[in-house]
């Protein structure tokens, strides 16, 4: 299925703590992830298990009271944790695009959608300049797909000397805005650009956020609970859109969700997280057919199915671990029916048990 090439993004043994009044919250306890090219990896877990923290750590947007205690984040081989704030900012502008959960609070209420979308394009004036030049040679309007293919193309010496006016750059940005809104299936893009976020519906706002992410032609697309704040029909539409887009754009997607159904819809691979660790990674089919980790098994059993009749809803006994004073060793062991002595001492690492199927458990 997948060639054993190097992952685009690899997280190794990531540990992150938050300093709060009540103590140190040990949010990430050695997270390990691999994201390959053009793949959709879904990071699944309960609320508070550290999914969003992982994403924020990757793009270096953690709040002030957080510290990264150890580990590596390798993007195309480079360790992101060693990069400066400014270098990370450039990476956020060029390679990592994020879409977040609640489009109401994540969009600036006093700026128009046009302003908020255009500024993303205007981040890379050089690219826009390239686009203007290309458009002149193409003799037709440059669309987003053309813009996409421009990425990575180095400027030929003849084009880098061409004078492009600021007005032309702005116009190119505006045209790209309109085109990209069409790509995310928004009707009447010109009108939307003039409107404020509160004037649009939730689904439309979310599409705009996705457009803002696409505008950067990213290598990695991080979607943090993007469907959670939407009702089910809109959810389906957005997922549909994401599926269409993954063929158009050349990016890898990290899809964070607590909803296994959403993950099943769209992911190639699923990584299950619990209490600050990734406990199991496998392809979507594999993980539903053959869950290995006790937690994953219980998760599968806990999903109510419409087709089979079930007497009792099987909930997982116990509660989520207190991250200020977490259980030693494997953080799931207090709730695990197959817990052993070893589980109380050291946290198990992810090991490949079956081909392309990793588990972090002493059972294997």
């Amino acid at each position, binding site marked *: 299925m997948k060639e054993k090439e190097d992952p685009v993004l690899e997280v190794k043994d990531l540990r992150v703590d938050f300093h709060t009044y009540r103590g140190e919250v040990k949010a990430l306890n050695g997270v390990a992830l691999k994201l390959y090219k053009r793949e959709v990896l879904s990071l699944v877990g309960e609320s508070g298990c550290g999914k969003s923290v992982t994403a924020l750590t990757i*793009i270096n*947007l953690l709040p002030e009271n957080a510290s990264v205690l150890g580990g590596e984040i390798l993007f195309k081989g480079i360790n992101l944790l060693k990069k400066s704030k400014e270098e990370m*900012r*450039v*990476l*956020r*502008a*060029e390679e*990592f695009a*994020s879409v*977040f959960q*609640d489009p109401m*609070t*994540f*969009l*600036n*209420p*006093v*700026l128009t959608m046009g*302003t908020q979308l255009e*500024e*993303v394009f205007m*981040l890379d004036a050089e690219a826009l300049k390239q686009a203007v030049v290309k458009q002149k040679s193409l003799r037709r309007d440059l669309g987003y797909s053309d813009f996409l293919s421009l990425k990575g193309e180095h400027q030929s010496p003849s084009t880098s000397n061409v004078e492009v006016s600021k007005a032309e750059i702005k116009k190119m940005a505006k045209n790209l805005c309109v085109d990209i809104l069409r790509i995310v299936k928004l009707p009447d893009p010109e009108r939307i650009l003039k409107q*404020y976020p*509160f004037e649009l519906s939730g689904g439309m706002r979310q599409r705009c*956020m996705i457009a*803002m992410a696409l505008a*950067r032609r990213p290598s990695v697309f991080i979607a943090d609970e993007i469907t959670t704040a939407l009702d089910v029909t809109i959810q389906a539409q957005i997922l549909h859109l994401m599926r269409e887009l993954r063929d158009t754009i050349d990016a890898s997607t990290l899809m964070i969700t607590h909803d296994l159904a959403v993950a099943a819809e769209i992911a190639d691979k699923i990584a299950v997280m619990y209490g600050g660790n990734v406990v199991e990674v496998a392809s979507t089919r594999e993980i539903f057919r053959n869950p290995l980790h006790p937690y994953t098994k219980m998760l599968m059993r806990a999903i109510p199915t419409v087709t089979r009749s079930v007497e009792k809803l099987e909930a997982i006994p116990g509660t989520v671990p207190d991250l200020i004073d977490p259980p030693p060793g494997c953080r799931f062991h207090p709730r695990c029916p197959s817990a052993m002595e070893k589980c109380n001492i050291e946290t198990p690492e992810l090991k490949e048990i079956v081909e392309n199927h990793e588990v972090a458990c002493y059972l294997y």
Partner: protein
Amino acid sequence: MKLYEYIIRRLILLVFVLFAVSVVIFYLLRGFPTGIAPWAAYIHPRMTAEQIEAVIRAHGFDRPIWEQYFYWLRDVFNGDWGLTGIWAQGRPANEVFFNHFPYTVELSVFGTILTIAIGVPLGIISAIKNNKLPDHVSRVIALAGYSTPAYWFGFILQLVFFYYFSLWGLPHLPSSGAPDFAVAKIIGLPIFDGLLAGNLTYVWDEFLHLILPSFSLSFISLGFLARIVRASMLEVLRQDYITMARSKGLKERVVIYRHALKNALIPAVTLTGIFFAAILGGAMITEYVFSWPGVGQQALRAVFQGDSNFLLVYNLVFATVIVLANLVVDVIYAFLDPRIKY
């Protein structure tokens, strides 16, 4: 309700407030049993008892208080605000007031400009570098301004910039007063009229005289503004859309100025109405200290003389200004925040 309905409602409220203000002042100054007698402003020690009686009757101070108020109201609607006392040579109250009003306006305007120019950046710095050294320093400066006695700061400025500077042979600023109005009155504000008339020496002279009093006035209120800006910036910087803006890879400066500031200034602007009242009130002592020929200085004398006519004009004009300023601020708020619809 629509915007103009809202404005009309507020204007009606203004009329009510003006009536209430006039009644309060009228009663306090003319009807209140203790304190200065209402005719005190119109007599001098060498008058005989009969002359005093004549003065009292001429001004109607012997009539019952509500009759006095009625006559005063009637006169006001005819444009007659009564005469001031001996301290202002008995000229009509509104004439005395409006002769000096432009100076107070000029002072307040420059004071406000300085306040905004210094206070807003101070607040922004405080918010961006929250709990670090620049924050502490600017907060102490802001609070020091807020805690400074107006009567003291003015004198210190005069001491340093006028007296000591000239002692040390440095070019110095004038200590007090303002040059006489040497140009034609067009707008009424001395500096602007000077500019319009092209009389640059006058403009420069006026400007030099204006620096110290406006700075004194602004120093006291910039602390207030800075802390409001700081508080609302802090609130805004914690919002999700700021995280979103940063995740787009925007430069931090763009995040602050394009995304954060506009949201943060909205509540700051609304509170400006209140602090404008504080500036107007504070101007009185500043004018006294700097002998600035504004209306506050006159009002101070009027209070000590018990001159009710002048004080009625003074308070009514300022009440109007304050209520209108608050109204303007509320309307501006509606324009700034696209979510607000009245």
